């Protein structure tokens, strides 16, 4: 010990050198921290630029008239009413198909299936793969199966079925997560009282998992609401000057109406496209805020 002490004292220049090395290393660390922060700042800047660009272009054109008017060849008279109503029809129907199917599949996978069986493994891998399939491919499936094979034509029904299949993997995976988070003690307590498996699921497991399931479903629905590509392939129209009366009617939705306006060269159409985007973003932000609120309220 003594020897080392002496050695250190004798080599003062060396220890000074390491301390100056530490200084430059710390400086380097700070510099890179700045770079990494810039990356985050770039993301935030883009969000701000995007929002200001849309608001600046569209806010002046957003009015009650715009929301309650049908589309028109004249930008000053054009409105988003038929697209808004179309979106509501499509989303409602999508929910009716996707929610029971998705939650049912999740219940089967988490509560019933024997995870050692190969079939259930295939199911799980298959769902993960489906989540990575581009949305436009679902549109092709919808075109071949719903529009042609089942002859639903270019209807709200075809569009909603296509979107339901698109968001099915998202709902399944998030519902599975919610079911996994239910403590096993609750199930065991219910079984100990002689309650059947299904009544345990509906009476104990599902109420506990419901906030998680709903959060996942809302996020999936808001994704479906912003989708345009699969519906274009399925044959949603860009110009619909009437309101749908049944699920077999042809239709348009907000993103497709916006796409239609964006692809026109005149400046005014860019303005109403931006106004349409504002309507869409307000709806999506409300949905997402509800989801986050649900998550924070019930997450313990």
């Amino acid at each position, binding site marked *: 010990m003594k020897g080392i002490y002496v050695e250190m004292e004798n080599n003062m220049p060396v220890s000074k050198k390491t301390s100056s090395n530490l200084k430059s290393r710390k400086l380097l660390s700070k510099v890179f921290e700045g770079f990494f922060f810039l990356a985050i700042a770039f*993301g935030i800047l883009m969000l701000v630029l995007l929002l200001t660009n849309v608001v600046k272009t569209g806010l002046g054109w957003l009015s009650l008239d715009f929301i309650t008017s049908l589309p028109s060849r004249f930008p000053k008279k054009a409105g988003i009413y038929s697209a808004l109503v179309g979106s509501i029809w499509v989303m409602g129907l999508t929910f009716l198909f996707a929610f029971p199917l998705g939650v049912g599949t999740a219940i089967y996978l988490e509560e019933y299936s024997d995870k050692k069986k190969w079939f259930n493994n295939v199911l799980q891998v298959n769902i993960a793969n489906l989540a990575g399939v581009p949305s436009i491919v679902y549109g092709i499936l919808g075109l071949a199966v719903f529009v042609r094979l089942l002859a639903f034509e270019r209807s709200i029904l075809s569009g909603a079925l296509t979107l339901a299949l698109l968001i099915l993997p998202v709902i399944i995976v998030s519902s599975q997560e919610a079911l996994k988070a239910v403590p096993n003690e609750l199930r065991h307590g219910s079984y100990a009282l002689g309650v059947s498996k299904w009544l345990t699921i509906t009476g104990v497991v599902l109420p506990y998992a419901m906030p998680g399931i709903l959060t996942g479903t809302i996020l999936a629905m808001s994704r479906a609401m912003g989708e345009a590509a699969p519906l274009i392939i399925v044959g949603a129209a860009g110009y619909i000057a009437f309101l749908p009366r049944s699920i077999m009617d042809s239709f348009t939705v907000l993103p497709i109406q916006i796409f239609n306006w*964006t692809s026109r060269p005149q400046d005014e159409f860019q303005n109403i496209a931006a106004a349409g985007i504002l309507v869409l973003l307000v709806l999506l932000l409300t949905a997402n805020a509800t989801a986050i609120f649900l998550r924070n309220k019930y997450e313990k």
Partner: protein
Amino acid sequence: MSKREPDKNIMRMHAQEKIIKTLLQTFSAVSIFVTIGIVVTLLWETLGFLREVSVFEFLFTTKWTPTLAPKHFGVLPIVVGTMMIALLSSIVSIPVGLGSAIYLSEFAPAKVRKVIKPILEILAGIPSIVYGFFALNFITPFLRGFFPEIEVFNALSAAIAVGIMTMPMVASLSEDAMKAVPKALREGAYALGATKLEVALNVVLPAAISNVISSFVLAISRAIGETMIVAIAAGANSTLTFNPLHSIQTMTGYMVNISMGDIQHGSVEYKTVFAVGLLLFLMTLLMNILARHIVSRYREEY
């Protein structure tokens, strides 16, 4: 008599349980049928397409004019268009996403994290149509300041928008992976006198590398399948070009363009949608399998 009643109840309960289980099993089979449906419809119409156009012409020639006489069906120009978008967008999404992830996981104070995470979630939740509008009305005019010769519709601005859209995915997947690295590893390095940067780059990043790289692959896969941004901002020029300032067409952009017009069911144009769709499906499937392979093959277990 009253003794037999509970038995009946239990019998009914068992029967009910069985029915419910079968019903739920049927529900879960739907997702299998979706996959089968996708593969079968794509293959079926593609086979019909290949009866009219040779495989060689489809995969290896460089003229793509399915709607104009004389018709040519060489898919390469739109494949190159797709690749250009995928690669250019990854120049934005990968460094920015990774930098954000490192900052959030290793440097950011808890308060900053709390503010920034939801912002990234919002960025990820904005529909692609909105990014398309942004590319056309903001990014392209902005780029014109640097490249006056840039076309109204061009690959570069679409790719930048795709990069901004896929960046949050890289950031959140990479950050999750880095957060999952055990604290003990960091503390060991700090105890040896490492700086924050050295811990982040030499300890945490190598430990999380499999998930980080798989997030890069997933971002590129998303970019390949991205549709509305390129349909709005990249144009519809299907001649082969490698110049990102020019108007191009991607595989997805082509499918949208042809679907906007009136195509006859059963015509060759109709079938091209399926042939291009099959190619797109296979490309993204390969990338997704690759991503999963990287995670399972190179995972560091602690």
